[in-house]
């Protein structure tokens, strides 16, 4: 393979798609850049405004940090959100040749290592995405700077944002965005047709989020038992997504950029925020490694709405398992018959989710011996977990209440 020529061809091939995304993302971010309040307003001072959100939970605090203040944080927030559009859509374009029979015939016969082509495409997708995002961020930042200069000249004020934090934010953004991008690439690599890919990416997002919540709930419950603290449930579950780190760092840096005021950022150092952050980084980082270790499947699976053999069976079970564990963990803290009902419901839900995914993927509801083994093992371990938790709570608190 003529690698250089292929890279050139591939970049040219991706250009029209990136031009469309550029238009969408830039229009969104620039509108926020134009709307940013560049004047210093004391009531927007995070030292004052941030204090109000201290006790309102992590998500309210993070989003509060992003949206109160001067509007600068709203620009960062919008940039993070539209960046996710990129991180979610590009992997579909990168992996599209696997979903198309015609393209897979061509790519499959080429005298190159199967994994090499996809790795080149993944990296080009990432680099092109980041170049476009960097361009947009640079222009957006210049718009804010220019507006601030003009405002200061006209009004005679001398308030300037700490622009160094803009670039620190972007550096962290590059890393967190890339991790989300690789996470979605990994999900796309599990699928063999476009419809299947959409479902897989969505399922991975949900599964990972729920899995993180289940881990958090379990660990937080144990933590609270050990510390004799009755506050067991996370205050807002949606912090547990692969996208959380970008918001987390967006909140920190947008506040720091606001004239160096840190306000009260202690909420970002809370147990929940750290678990969510580390969990998201771990999962997305693992997916990034998975993309590079992934062995290209044989061409006959291309274009078919079937996942790959055993590892995707595990993936399907994972989706069901997460529901099971999540409900089992929660129900274990309820010292009534309701907990038995909840666990029974979780077992049925698990089966239901698995059968639904099985039907979407394979167009049938046939359960193999492996399926039954997975199912029985997962139900058994969830029950053991729930019973253990139940007795721990009973011993610690007697009767528990959420």
């Amino acid at each position: 393979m003529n690698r250089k020529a292929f890279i050139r061809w591939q970049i040219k091939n991706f250009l029209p798609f990136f031009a469309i995304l550029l238009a969408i993302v830039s229009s969104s971010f620039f509108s926020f850049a134009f709307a940013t309040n560049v004047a210093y307003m004391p009531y927007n001072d995070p030292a004052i405004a941030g204090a109000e959100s201290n006790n309102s939970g992590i998500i309210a605090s993070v989003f509060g940090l992003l949206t109160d203040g001067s509007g600068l944080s709203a620009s960062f927030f919008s940039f993070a959100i539209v960046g996710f559009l990129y991180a979610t859509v590009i992997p579909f374009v990168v992996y599209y040749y696997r979903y198309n029979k015609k393209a897979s015939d061509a790519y499959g016969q080429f005298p190159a290592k199967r994994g090499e082509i996809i790795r080149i495409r993944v990296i080009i997708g990432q680099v092109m995405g980041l170049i476009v995002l960097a361009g947009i961020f640079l222009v957006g930042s210049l718009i804010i700077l220019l507006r601030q200069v003009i405002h200061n000249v006209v009004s005679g004020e001398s308030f300037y944002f700490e622009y160094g934090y803009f670039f620190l934010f972007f550096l962290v953004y590059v890393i967190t965005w890339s991790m989300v991008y690789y996470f979605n690439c990994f999900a796309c690599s599990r699928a063999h047709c476009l419809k299947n890919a959409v479902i897989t990416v969505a399922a991975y997002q949900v599964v990972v989020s729920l899995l993180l919540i289940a881990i958090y709930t379990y660990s937080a419950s144990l933590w609270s038992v050990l510390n004799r603290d009755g506050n067991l449930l996370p205050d807002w579950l949606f912090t547990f997504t692969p996208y959380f780190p970008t918001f987390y760092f967006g909140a920190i840096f947008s506040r720091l950029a606001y004239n160096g005021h840190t306000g009260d950022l202690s909420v970002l150092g809370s147990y929940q925020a750290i678990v969510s952050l580390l969990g998201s980084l771990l999962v997305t980082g693992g997916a990034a490694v998975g993309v590079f270790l992934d062995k290209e499947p044989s061409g006959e699976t291309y274009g078919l709405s079937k996942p790959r053999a055993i590892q995707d069976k595990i993936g399907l079970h994972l989706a069901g398992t997460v529901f099971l564990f999540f409900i089992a963990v929660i129900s274990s803290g309820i010292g009534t018959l309701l907990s038995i009902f909840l666990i029974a419901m979780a077992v049925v839900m698990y089966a239901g989710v698995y059968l639904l995914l099985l039907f979407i993927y394979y167009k049938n509801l046939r359960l193999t011996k492996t399926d039954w083994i997975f199912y029985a093992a997962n139900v058994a371990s969830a029950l053991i977990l729930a019973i253990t938790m139940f007795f721990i709570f009973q011993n610690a608190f007697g009767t528990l209440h959420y």
Partner: protein
Amino acid sequence: MIEIRNLTKTFGETKAVDNLSLTINPGIVGLVGHNGAGKSTLFRLLSDVFTPDAGEILVEGKPHNLPETKARVFFLSDDPYCGLTDNYKDVYRFYANFYPIDFEKYVGLLDTLHLPKKGRVGNYSKGMKRQLFLALSLSVEADVYLLDEAFDGIDPLALDLIKGEIIKLGENGKTVILSSHNIASLERLVDRFILLYKGKLSKEGTDEDMGESLVKYQGVFANEVKEEDFTKLGLRVASFKKVGSIYHVVFSLNGKEEPNIEESLKPILWEKVAIDPDEVIALQMRLAEKEADHE
């Protein structure tokens, strides 16, 4: 030379290629068979698009899936790929990333075929697109060319030109394997035929080999006769047709003697006639189907 040993490929419960063993020498080979006989699957196995469930393929003694072996094998699928906005040069650039391609020959062939050089290839008609990809394939410097549904939708003039190029490749010691639904388009072009039926090798050989065991008779009978009347006599009927009052019957002898029906069926007229070469492959395909049904 391509050696295929005990090759098997299964999709679900369907054996697309079933324990196939073959040796293909340089020259022009026609791969024929019914829809679903396994022709396209065999092409995809040979070009390493598909991975076999069992068996092996050797190209010049080396495994077919090594990058250096794949670089010498070019596969043109029945519906070739190009980018949405690609023009003829982009198509060349894309494939040239992976194969050595003689650009001058490619452009020369496009000129000879009077193909337009402006506009997207995606906007070409089916036949024009096919011609462009054939021009590209024939300009690739490979040892083995796999052309699936090679002449689909091509006009007779272009077909003649392309056949000329394929013959040149054959003369230069290259291996060209063609499949086509239009068997007549392969006649007087290929050196050998390979007939597949349900993923298995049904028959292989030259034009003459394929027609060797077949004999055709035409006759007139006083009473109505049916195909069963011949099979009851122990004859293998490849084809049985009645046009007006004349019966056209083709038998597969396979070492047996010529059919003697004079006494049993008492024809008014019964004479042996020559088989049209265009008919031979179709007859062999029909025979393969009948034998499979019989089994």
